[in-house]
């Protein structure tokens, strides 16, 4: 039963990931922590391995739809190792609770900005298209 729920959450995580441009860790981590009894750190680490093929397939599909600025994406990815290293070291050293609450506050702030932006009426009443 736990395996079935883990697989279902995996599929749902991939769907959310493909839809919103995230890896799917939002659902992979709880699936692994709750249904596979992994610790939060193990679940986060294992989730990262699942994210690699998900991101590759989603990027390939989005490239086909014409939605990938490949150079920009690869630049962001290529320049991330310093951040990754810092994050992993901090994750193993700092109180998990402090990390969780800090990220929660940041996520809520960004959500508010995105909502305001999406609901803001545009001059002609049409959904606004950002400048490119």
């Amino acid at each position, binding site marked *: 039963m736990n395996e079935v729920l883990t697989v279902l959450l995996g599929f749902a995580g991939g769907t959310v990931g493909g839809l919103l441009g995230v890896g799917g860790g939002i659902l992979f981590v709880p699936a692994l922590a709750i249904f596979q009894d992994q610790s939060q750190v193990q679940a986060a680490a294992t989730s990262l391995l*699942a994210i690699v093929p998900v991101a590759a397939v989603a990027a390939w599909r989005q490239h086909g739809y014409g939605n990938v600025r490949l150079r920009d994406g690869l630049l962001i990815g290529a320049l991330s190792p310093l951040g990754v290293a810092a994050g992993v070291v901090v994750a193993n050293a700092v109180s998990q609770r402090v990390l969780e609450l800090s990220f929660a506050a940041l996520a809520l702030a960004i959500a508010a900005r995105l909502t305001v*932006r999406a609901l803001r009426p545009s001059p002609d009443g049409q959904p606004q298209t950002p400048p490119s």
Partner: protein
Amino acid sequence: MRRTLQLAAIGTAAGAFSGLFGVGGGTIIVPLLVFWLAFGEREATGTSMAAIILIAAYAVILQATYGNVDPAEAALVGVPAIGGAVAGTALQQRLPERAISLLFAVLLVVIAVELIIP
């Protein structure tokens, strides 16, 4: 040059959050591309995915050195998730960009609630 520095800053921030929370960094990359570099939502999410391949790959190698990665359990969520990724990207093409923004905001609220509940 300024743009390259912005992309570098986005990469560093996304990498840090990836290492901290086990997410690929997309929750940071997508809003930063939208608000900072004026990407459309579809472009931001697609470009984020390309970045996440590399970010998640780096992070998983580092986490593996701590002995935290379980490949069998990664496959248990990752294999069905590949099908989900194909479905999710196809679904996204049928949605207006405002809807993607709102769904992204919902995702962030869910993440926040999940983090706040101990």
